[in-house]
């Protein structure tokens, strides 16, 4: 996964600064239960700034779509309040919220042409005919479907339908646009292309977007900030780079990107760092103390594959060795699956610089900096 970190960091800094001063959308102590027994969303507190692109990312059943539906007005919060532009919106019906939405399967009206689909939100707002025509054409031009107004949705490809849905959600100039896994039905190439298009449209018109997906690369590509959902709780809300590089708990570390884990017990705490004794007597590892508190606690260490060095030593004494179980040639890099300290799924990415000439079964010398190892909850 390659991300243009520089640009993302810049963008995210800007939003973090906005964030505290004024929140455009505010979830306050939101609980949601359908049956009175299980909480689908637990104590959700979330602030979204104006113009921000926030993604709710999580596995299915984690409560992200429910949260989106509460914002759109199709579900009511069991507890708490949602504020839009500082006004509570729980009592406002969906048709008065002025929130655009792109549905999972687009929900284009099959009996209307593309232009009629786009005119619909304008007609119900009693906008004059010439204005409607102009706005519809503008919206269609925006998604590069200027000549498709007279077609019916069934006559369009999946990607084109997606764009029409997007144009329809934007044509009435809503305060906020929600997208519920809008790219889920597209094939991989088209999905990536649409990710950029949606991102560019967002950059161009500067509308606030709340996006739901279970695809982490989609979230990382498009968002200013990502809220990682699991089990009805936001695990971490942060910019893509921080989420990837500094996960705060083991769920986020596992869910975002590839991650190597080693289990152990905390033996020594020293300020922001700690020393962990690996289970099975494989030695001690120095790591950053992130989600552990005291000596004797069980912990899971998290190391990104690309932060493991081969055939080098570090001063941190995090020097280990691993047996190559499997080598997969991937062109730009070689993916090596190793047996390290009892973990047979330990992945290392070796850049293809032409100097790697080990075979399966060889022992490799491994090392990593203690700043790249994060001691998280187990």
């Amino acid at each position, binding site marked *: 996964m390659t991300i243009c970190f520089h640009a993302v960091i810049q963008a995210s800094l800007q939003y973090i600064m906005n964030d505290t001063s004024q929140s455009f959308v505010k979830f306050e102590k939101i609980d949601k239960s359908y049956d009175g027994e299980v909480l689908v969303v637990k104590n959700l507190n979330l602030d979204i700034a104006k113009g921000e692109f926030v993604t709710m990312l999580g596995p299915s059943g984690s409560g992200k779509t429910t949260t989106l539906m509460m914002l*759109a*007005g*199709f579900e009511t919060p069991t507890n708490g309040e949602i504020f839009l532009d500082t006004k509570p919106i729980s009592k406002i*019906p*969906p*048709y*008065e*919220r*002025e*929130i*655009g*939405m792109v*549905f*999972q*399967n687009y*929900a284009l*009206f*099959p*009996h209307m042409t593309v232009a009629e689909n786009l005119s*619909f*939100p304008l007609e*119900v*707002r009693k906008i004059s005919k010439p204005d409607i025509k102009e706005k519809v054409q503008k919206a269609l031009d925006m998604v590069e479907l200027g000549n498709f107004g007279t077609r019916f949705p069934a006559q369009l490809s999946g990607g084109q339908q997606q764009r029409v849905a997007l144009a*329809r959600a934007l044509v*009435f100039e809503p305060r906020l646009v929600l997208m519920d896994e809008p790219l889920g039905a597209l094939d991989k190439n088209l999905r990536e292309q649409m990710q950029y298009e949606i991102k560019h449209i967002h950059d161009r018109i500067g509308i606030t977007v709340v996006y739901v997906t279970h695809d982490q690369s989609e979230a990382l590509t498009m968002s200013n900030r990502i809220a990682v959902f699991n089990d009805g709780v936001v695990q971490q809300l942060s910019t893509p780079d921080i989420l990837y590089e500094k996960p705060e708990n083991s769920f986020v570390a596992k869910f975002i990107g590839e991650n190597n884990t080693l289990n152990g017990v905390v033996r020594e705490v020293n300020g922001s760092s700690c020393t962990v004794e690996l289970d099975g007597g494989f030695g001690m590892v120095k790591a950053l103390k992130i989600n552990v508190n005291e000596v004797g606690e069980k912990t899971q260490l998290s190391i990104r594959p690309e932060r493991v060095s081969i055939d080098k030593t570090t001063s941190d004494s995090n020097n280990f060795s691993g047996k190559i179980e499997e080598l997969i040639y991937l062109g730009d890099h070689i993916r090596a699956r190793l047996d390290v300290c009892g973990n047979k799924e330990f992945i290392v990415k070796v850049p293809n610089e032409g100097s790697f000439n080990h075979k399966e079964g060889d022992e490799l010398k491994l090392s990593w900096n203690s700043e790249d190892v994060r001691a998280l909850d187990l």
Partner: protein
Amino acid sequence: MEVTISTAELLTTDGIPLKQSLRKAERRNKLRAFLLVFPLLLFIIVTFVMPIGDMLLRSVDDSQINSVFPNTFEEYKNWDKGADELPPEEVYKSLFFELANGDKRQIGKALTRMNYAKSGWKSLIKKTTREIKKIVKKGEEPVSYKDTFIKINKFWGDPTYWYSFNQMVNDRSSIYYWNALDRTFDEDGDVVLQDEKRRMYIKTWLRTFKVSVYVTIFCLILGFPVAHLLANLPLRYSNLLMIFVLLPFWTSLLVRTTAWIVMLQQNGVINGILVWLGVISDDGRIQMVYNEAGTLIAMTQILLPFMILPLYSVMRVIPKSHMRAAQNLGAKPAMAFWRVYLPQTIPGISAGGLLVFVLAIGYFITPELVGGKDGKLIGSWIAYHLKTTLNWGLCAALGGILLGIMLIFYWLYNKIVGIDNIKLG
């Protein structure tokens, strides 16, 4: 790369024309497909196409009487009605011999037909035949056949009887169709209305239409919410509800119809409950059956599943997100329903509507049983003429008109909605 497009016929590798080769390869498949549908095709031809064709022919057929009185009709055509009050002598003479020598059963059939044209023919001919046979037995040859006839019965001097021959002299006749519309021919062969007391079909046709339209509308009003509920409830509830819809469907039509009699009659369940509740007094019991109301109630209930099922099959596949999307775009629920949901149910509405209407217009048993005198539909007349009067020509004409109406509706429907839009399940 350049592509050369050849205008010559395409050939296979072996040099045989491609189309010919393809035909050969496909022949076996086509033959197999044909053999598979052949039994059904045969069945449809024998049990459906042929009977309907036969009935339609019958509705215009008038050849029987022409085969009984060929010479009489031939001579009759020479009669100049402007010049002579009565037909010429030759007509009487031909009739004399054809009555004397004709087959008794064939004449009997012809008499029935003649009676449709003018009542009185039957007894007149019967009496006359008896007298003619006596004359023939004696071996006398009448001097004037005309005078002999008039001597036997004075009606033979009444030109109106002879005028009625006019509508029988051709092998093909449209008289049954005109009869089915309360019309007949006058002495000049022009179409005129029947006598007031003999007009009953137009009234029945109109009632049939009215009842069919009402039943279709009632079924739509009652069926739409049920179908919507069926399509949107969780599966276990909708299955239960579906059984409630289908259970009457599986019950015998006769049982359901008689059940309605039990419910609706003056001493029936509904009246009983209303009296018990004090809504109506004991002498104020409402007449709900053996009239048009009874027909409407029973037919609506019986035909309801035919509306619900096509509607349900259409509604089931309308994604729930459409109503949400419409509201999200700013439409109030009523507007969302009207602009987004309803148009998508049109295939179901039209399929159900057409089905119910077509079934209702030809309905017979229920109106016959609960309709009483003023709730009878055209189907009752068809059955009456089929079984009681044996006037199969009129019967076929009524059926033919019914078929024509349905085809017109089908054509109209295709023009307005498009037949591809129909969806039965």
